[in-house]
């Protein structure tokens, strides 16, 4: 009896506290509404799901959600959006996807909601988001125009930059120092080939035949090298993969993989890269920082605790590390029939309070909010990984999306990845130059029907 009483009082208190934080808007305005949410299977989504009951209790909104593994998530989302039925109301997306969804009219711009004080609590603190990440989710819908201008299409859940993770133990044993230039990286990869027998190798990077191969490490070095994918010339998008920098960089990349990459590189996605690093098969990995971070958590892998983090190795004559950025975000369906209820959901799960939870207890270490990043609780957790915070802060200064926004992103990057595979494992092309020239021509042709103002 007493137990029950205490529970009731505690609950009431909690609700009141929560209410106090969000008191300025009516959270119960859409009580009884049901909204549908589509998640990609991810830690970020798990953090939300863990707090779903709180949200439902606060708002009286019922949330029906699905989580789909990443290999098929976007196929499913594409199909669902194209039905234009308003289901799902909220979905997880990346920035690249908004370039496709927003021009097609599937996405609801969020600026109006954020600015409306009757819809958005004062405690939401929109300005608290790291500007670089928010900018990655803005676009004016003109192909060729960079991100950062135009409407806001989604709100970030977390983000990733692409840096080097290495195995301290192996590096120490072989007496190799952490590479800071591309030359050092190449030498280290060669030196670490078969560092512990057949099947072990120097550097793990992605190699599958899709966009996932291009956007992390490859695109980061591509941008650091000073290359660009597209430029607007004479009212048209023109592919610049045949530029000197692009060819040089790609040629370096191909040689790097051939000399020190995984023997089965062309089948490697993030999970195999991470697995090899964690198992001590790969001495280094250049991928999303999170990938290395999670392998390093105690009990997660054989090499947990031995992993350390470093920045992006620089090519000769380059001073600035540029990491391409990936931000898992949530967007709203333009055809949603419960937009205001859906906004409450978005607001709640990107609020500083929730972000603090997800950034600490929720394991989502790449927080998009400055307030979280500077909080002690967060820094205590992340500091456990050597060099993580340092390289994170260093690289994130110049992290953004280095792709030129255009709606054929997936098509162009898949073809790009295909050529990369051909260069590494087949003899289809005589030289990198020939391959890149053909590719540039093909991609220019592909995007020629896009209207560029």
């Amino acid at each position, binding site marked *: 009896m007493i137990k029950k009483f205490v529970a009731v009082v505690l609950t009431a208190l909690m609700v009141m506290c929560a209410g106090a934080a969000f008191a300025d808007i009516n959270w119960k305005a859409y009580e009884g509404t049901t909204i549908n949410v589509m998640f990609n299977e991810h830690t970020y989504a*798990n953090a939300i799901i863990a707090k779903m009951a709180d949200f439902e209790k606060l708002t009286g909104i019922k949330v029906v959600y699905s989580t*789909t593994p990443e290999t098929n998530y976007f196929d499913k989302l594409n199909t669902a959006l194209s*039905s234009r039925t308003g289901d799902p109301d909220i979905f997880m997306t990346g920035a690249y996807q908004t370039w496709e969804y927003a021009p097609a009219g599937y996405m609801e711009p969020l600026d109006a909601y954020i600015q409306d004080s009757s819809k958005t609590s004062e405690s939401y603190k929109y300005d608290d988001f790291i500007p670089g990440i928010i900018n990655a989710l803005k676009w004016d819908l003109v192909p060729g125009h960079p991100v950062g201008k135009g409407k806001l299409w989604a709100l970030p859940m977390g983000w990733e930059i692409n840096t080097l993770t290495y195995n301290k133990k192996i590096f120490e044993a072989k007496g190799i120092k952490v590479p800071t230039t591309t030359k050092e990286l190449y030498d280290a990869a060669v030196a670490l080939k078969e560092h512990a027998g057949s099947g072990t190798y120097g550097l793990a990077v992605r190699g599958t035949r899709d966009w996932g191969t291009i956007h992390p490490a490859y695109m980061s070095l591509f941008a650091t090298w000073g290359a660009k994918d597209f430029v607007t010339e004479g009212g048209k998008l023109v592919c610049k993969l045949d530029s000197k920098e692009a060819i040089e960089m790609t040629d370096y990349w191909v040689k790097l993989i051939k000399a020190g990459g995984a023997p089965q590189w062309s089948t490697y996605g993030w999970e195999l890269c991470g*697995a090899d690093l964690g198992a001590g098969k790969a001495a280094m990995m250049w991928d999303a920082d999170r*990938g290395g971070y*999670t392998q390093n958590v105690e*009990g*997660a*892998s054989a090499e947990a605790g031995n992993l350390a983090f470093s920045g992006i190795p620089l090519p000769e004559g380059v001073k600035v590390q540029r990491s391409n950025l990936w931000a898992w975000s949530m967007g709203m369906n333009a055809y949603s029939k419960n937009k205001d209820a859906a906004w409450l959901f978005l607001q709640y799960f990107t609020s500083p309070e929730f972000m603090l939870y997800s950034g600490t207890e929720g394991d989502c270490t790449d927080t998009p909010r400055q307030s979280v990043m500077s909080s002690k609780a967060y820094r205590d957790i992340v500091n456990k990984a050597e060099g993580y915070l340092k390289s994170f802060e260093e690289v994130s200064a110049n992290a953004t999306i280095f792709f030129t926004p255009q709606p054929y992103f997936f098509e162009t990057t898949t073809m790009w990845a295909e050529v990369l595979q051909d260069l590494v494992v087949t003899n289809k092309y005589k030289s990198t130059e020939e391959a890149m020239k053909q590719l540039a021509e093909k991609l220019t042709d592909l995007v020629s029907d896009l209207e560029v103002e």
Partner: protein
Amino acid sequence: MNKGSKRLLTITQNGLLFIYAIFALFPLIWMVLLSIKSDTQMYTTTFNFTPTLSNYTEVLLKTDYFKYLLDSLIVAGGAVIISVIAGVPAAYALARYDFKKKEDIAFQILSFKFAPEILVVLPLFMIYQTLGLYDSYFGLIWVYQLISMPLLIWVVRGYFEDISVEIEHAAQVDGYSWYQIFFKMLLPLIKPGLVSAALLAFIFAWNTFTFPLLLAGSKIQPITVAITKFLGTDTAHYGQLAVAATVSALPAIIFALCIQKHLVRGLSFGAVKG
């Protein structure tokens, strides 16, 4: 043939079978081994490791695994039941009656089995959205008919064709009505074929991926769609995937063991003389 060479032949035969058995069964054994390995030992050990049941507790107790399994059971099982109810009479009609376009209809039904899933799934998605069948048990059971119905009709039709028409006539003469003949005389005769075809249809429906991926979503998630979830979100938890795969194969394996006696006989597509 003398005794010695006969013995040699038997040894060779057993040897060849043994080699193939390793090829066929090792991946399964490997899968079970993975399921009792911890993440940290996953890649660094082969056979010499500390077995753990943590993957099992993780998958079976801490996720909605049984809900996925139940979903699979409902859609695959429901699909087979509908196929049996609608398919067995159809198979009978296609075997017995002479009507216009019979062979065409029969082939048409079979050809659905071979329809590329990708071809139908997109238009179906649009139709399902309009009819409200998207993400419903009924919707999935319906589309699974593409998988289970043709197989069932074709196996069972072979059986009906094999039953002498005079047996039916005899039963008519004996005073039985059409449906009594069907249930009392014919069904027992096609049972082996029916059971095996149903099992095979069940396995195919159980293992299908594209349809449930695109035509179901939040409410219903058959195990094939859910299974890659166990790969994990940060690191790949192959151990958990192995658990999910191993347990998901169990219903079909148990089913197969139960009807083992019928199974082979039943798939002779009616070539068995009664």
